[in-house]
């Protein structure tokens, strides 16, 4: 019957403390709202960084992560009184996973630390390794068998641990032509290497004995991966 008292509006929340107008609904709802605001502000201050990190790992783009996390946090705010004793962090994480999992196909994640992984692999790797969720729980959340989750996890791990090689060829023909060009270049360099007036094979030292291709093109693109030896 009375408008919300100004003293009851959210304390410690820098939300310009504007509660929705409650007309004649009463001050009980206003008190509940202010309590929700305070609890939600505390939760966001504590878990926001980690959730944003998770969202950034998933989407690979800070702006997209920001948008995703805003939607997730809004949903958590709206459901604040529905989850009685549940952990709001669990709620936020499952909501994040749900929203990311059901994204449309044109909204594909790109970039970030997990650039070479697909969306599902990103989800599994982030949940398993960053969030530390158990395999069975991950499987239940994604609706997959646990074996499948293990397989995806192993594949993603192998992809992440493999060296960031040349970008993948768009087609088989392109890959074949690239390989042929590489072999031709190697053969050409191997033939021309000993005849070069400037550098004799003895000047290349043990590297020449170890790897003729790498020794023949010391400043080539493959030079960065060459084993330099211990000093």
């Amino acid at each position, binding site marked *: 019957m009375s408008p919300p008292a100004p003293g009851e509006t959210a304390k410690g*929340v*820098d*939300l*310009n403390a504007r509660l*929705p107008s409650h007309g004649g609904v009463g001050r009980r709802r206003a008190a509940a709202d202010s309590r929700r*605001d305070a609890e*939600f*502000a505390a939760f*966001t*201050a504590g878990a*926001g*960084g*980690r959730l*944003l*990190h998770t969202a*950034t*790992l998933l989407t690979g783009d*800070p702006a997209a*992560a*920001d948008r995703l*996390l*805003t*939607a997730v*946090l*809004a*949903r*958590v*705010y*709206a459901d604040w009184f529905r989850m009685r004793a549940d952990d709001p962090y669990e709620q936020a994480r499952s909501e994040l996973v749900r929203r990311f999992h059901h994204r449309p196909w044109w909204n594909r994640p790109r970039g970030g*630390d997990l650039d070479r992984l697909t969306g599902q692999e990103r989800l599994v*790797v*982030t949940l398993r*390794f*960053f969030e530390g969720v158990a*395999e069975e729980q991950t499987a239940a959340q994604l609706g997959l068998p646990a074996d499948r989750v*293990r397989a995806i996890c192993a594949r*993603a*791990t*192998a992809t*992440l*641990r493999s060296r960031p090689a040349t970008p993948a060829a768009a087609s088989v023909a392109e890959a074949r032509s690239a390989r042929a060009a590489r072999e031709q270049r190697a053969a050409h360099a191997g033939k021309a290497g000993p005849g070069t007036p400037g550098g004799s094979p003895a000047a290349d030292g043990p590297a020449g004995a170890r790897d003729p291709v790498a020794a023949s093109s010391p400043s080539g693109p493959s030079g960065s991966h060459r084993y330099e030896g211990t000093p």
Partner: protein
Amino acid sequence: MSPLPNRRDEEVRRLLDTPHPAVPVDLAARAVLRGRRIVRRRRIEHTVLWALLVAAAIAGIVLAVLAWPDHSTPPVPSDNWWPTNGPN
């Protein structure tokens, strides 16, 4: 399933274990505003649905009271096509 720590898993964990990105200062405020909008919309939906339900219940009761058939007097067959005064 293996309880032992896996070296490859540890590598991936270390790859992911970077410092958290800086949270935008207005992220919580935006989330709260959007959450309030969700709450308000939900409240309106609930109000409308409850009002519809109550109106439907009242209408059903009123219709039942008005159109309830009266069985206190047996119906008198008057316009039958078959003879009703005995056989033949």
